[in-house]
């Protein structure tokens, strides 16, 4: 039986939209194929979370972005996130497309490309086409297919061979008008022995229900070092479905730093395919759930290359009646000798109604490897609260110290100071302090 999904738009509309945007023919073709796939594919099945009951139909329609020429014209929500010279290398998307984009002369001179993905597809076909939709394949499930069909705005970052970019480049994605399709797609290509840090923020305003269907693709060529930091802080009316994947070639490394600070329901899936020998992946995820949020976070490392190393840490604090399912999957393929995969998932529950579920999974098809996992779900330890209180610290302050302490070992390991502070602030906001 073929499944017929009601799609947010039809082939004709998608085709004319793509043409209207002057997209190259290969891209239009690419999108149409993906849309066809979407009609046949089912929704993903995140472990223990029934998303078929979620309203994932509210994609809205494409609404052409209105570009701004200077920073001053950016909405305050966005300019608040930009400090000092961060605007030198910045992409801003509002609703269906990019409204601002800048790249410093210095980085331009080094051959770095940083622009919205739509522009990149038109202007840098040779760098976009070989990678686009290869890391997160449209045929994974209906959502990846839909993003491949409908993506808009987005970001493209290319770092040439041997180029080391020393300051983080930043992108901000804002959904304001719930009636506008919001489906950014990020593509990062770090060429041989290059290094770069990319930081982005996802924010929303307004109370109308909507969906963010986002995809991130990262290609780290031999010896490249990519650090990808992302903070999601959508409001309660936005459902966040985000799929992030990196592929590492020989001796490449990827570092994920992820702040899951949404107020709405969320499914995120962050994976590294360690293809090349000697490559490494490190993922740090900090999450806070509140209200009646349903959350599902997956981290995954798939080892193909020999001597590959992966490390995944998720720390989540759940308050009120938030519910989090946290999955960690370490997969070591046959032939990935001397590989090492470690993962830890920890959930701290602050109320009797909060729920946390940690599911560490090791799938090992090779003998000569090391792998380990640790998972724990618990409440604030009353002995610890007592100890702190016995020194005169009030109960709320004692609990605050313990909660922050729970996240601290991961937060304090974040190599970007500004991001650390921002995460700290967001954690405080989410904890209602």
């Amino acid at each position, binding site marked *: 039986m073929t499944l017929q999904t009601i799609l947010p738009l039809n082939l004709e509309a998608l085709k004319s939209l793509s043409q209207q945007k002057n997209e190259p023919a290969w891209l239009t073709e690419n999108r149409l194929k993906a849309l066809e796939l979407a009609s046949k594919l089912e929704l993903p099945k995140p472990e223990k979370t029934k998303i078929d009951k979620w309203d994932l139909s509210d994609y809205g329609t494409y609404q052409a972005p209105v570009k701004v020429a200077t920073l001053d014209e950016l909405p305050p929500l966005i300019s608040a996130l930009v400090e000092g010279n961060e605007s030198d290398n910045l992409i801003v998307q509002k609703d269906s497309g990019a409204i601002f984009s800048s790249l410093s002369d210095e980085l331009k001179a080094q051959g770095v490309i940083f622009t919205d993905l739509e522009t990149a597809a038109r202007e840098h076909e040779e760098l976009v086409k070989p990678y686009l939709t290869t890391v997160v394949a449209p045929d994974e499930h209906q959502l990846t297919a839909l993003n491949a069909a409908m993506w808009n705005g987005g970001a493209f970052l290319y770092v040439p061979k041997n180029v080391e970019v020393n300051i983080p480049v930043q992108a901000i994605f804002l959904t304001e008008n719930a009636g506008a399709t919001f489906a950014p797609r990020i593509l990062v290509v770090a060429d041989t022995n290059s290094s770069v840090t990319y930081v982005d923020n996802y924010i929303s305003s307004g109370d109308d229900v909507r969906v963010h269907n986002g995809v991130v693709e990262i290609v780290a060529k031999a010896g490249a070092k990519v650090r990808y930091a992302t903070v999601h802080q959508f409001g309660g009316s936005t459902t966040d479905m985000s799929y992030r994947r990196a592929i590492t070639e020989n001796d490449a490394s990827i570092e994920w730093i992820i702040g899951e600070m949404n107020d709405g329901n969320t499914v995120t899936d962050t994976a590294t395919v360690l293809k090349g020998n000697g490559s490494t992946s490190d993922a740090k995820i900090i999450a806070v759930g509140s209200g009646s949020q349903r959350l599902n976070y997956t981290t995954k490392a798939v080892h193909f290359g020999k001597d590959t190393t992966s490390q995944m840490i998720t720390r989540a604090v759940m308050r009120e009646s938030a519910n989090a399912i946290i999955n960690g999957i370490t997969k070591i393929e046959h032939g990935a000798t001397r590989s090492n995969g470690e993962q830890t998932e920890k959930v701290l529950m602050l109320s009797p109604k909060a729920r946390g579920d940690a599911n560490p999974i090791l799938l090992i098809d090779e003998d000569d490897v090391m792998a380990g996992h640790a998972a724990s779900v618990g409440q604030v330890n009353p002995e610890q609260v007592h*100890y702190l209180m*016995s*020194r*005169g610290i009030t109960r709320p*302050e004692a609990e605050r*110290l313990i909660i922050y*302490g*729970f996240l*601290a070992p991961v937060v304090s390991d974040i190599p970007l100071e500004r991001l650390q502070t921002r995460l700290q602030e967001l954690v405080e906001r989410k904890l209602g302090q």
Partner: protein
Amino acid sequence: MATNFVIEGLKATIDNKEILKGINLSMKGGEIHAIMGPNGTGKSTLASALMGHPKYEVTEGTVTLDGEDVLEMEVDERARAGLFLAMQYPSEITGVTNSDFLRSAINARREEGKEISLIKFIRQMEGSMKELDMNAEFAHRYLNEGFSGGEKKRNEILQMLLLEPKLVILDEIDSGLDIDALKIVANGVNKMRNEDRGFLIITHYQRLLDYITPDYVHVMMQGRIVKSGGPELAARLEAEGYDWVKEELGITDETVGQEA
């Protein structure tokens, strides 16, 4: 006003089992009282009940510090009123650095807006750590996490030095300490000794009392103070053990709940 700490008829239960069976003890600032007694006779229970550990329920009796009803107070209020307990088994708290913890504890005693300045705090902390021969790195380590037994005890004393309590209870502060550390900890206590401050020292060994001379020594058995005396009592217990006390009092099994 010199500190006055009075315990009268204190009874406490844990899981509905009565452990403390009527403790009477009166202490004044400047005095050092030692509590000795075999294992399982209620010494730590007394300390925990005084501090307000939620596991223990006080069923009878009163405790006052300078006339104020201690038992009415929350744990943190007791601490701010001047009570301090160096615990037999201090908690480990990952993610909270020792210095953040100490600063929070100091600031909890100060009004909002009058918090201790960072510089002053660091100076005080580092000064006290030096006195205790603690490596400066312990300020940045997570609270008690991975500390050795002796290091934890030293860290308890560090807190005592910085918080300047009125009534200090030390529960087996000497266990796990090497000879040098024992002297250092004893020096810390002696330095803190003054007219306003009372000490209740729970110990098994005369060793500690060689360095900190108590004014009174009490023996606990079966959840009560069964004998009190001066420093010579501790010396005799060290030399002869508890059998003579039991014999004198007609006790066969000294642990809680074993009375005839």
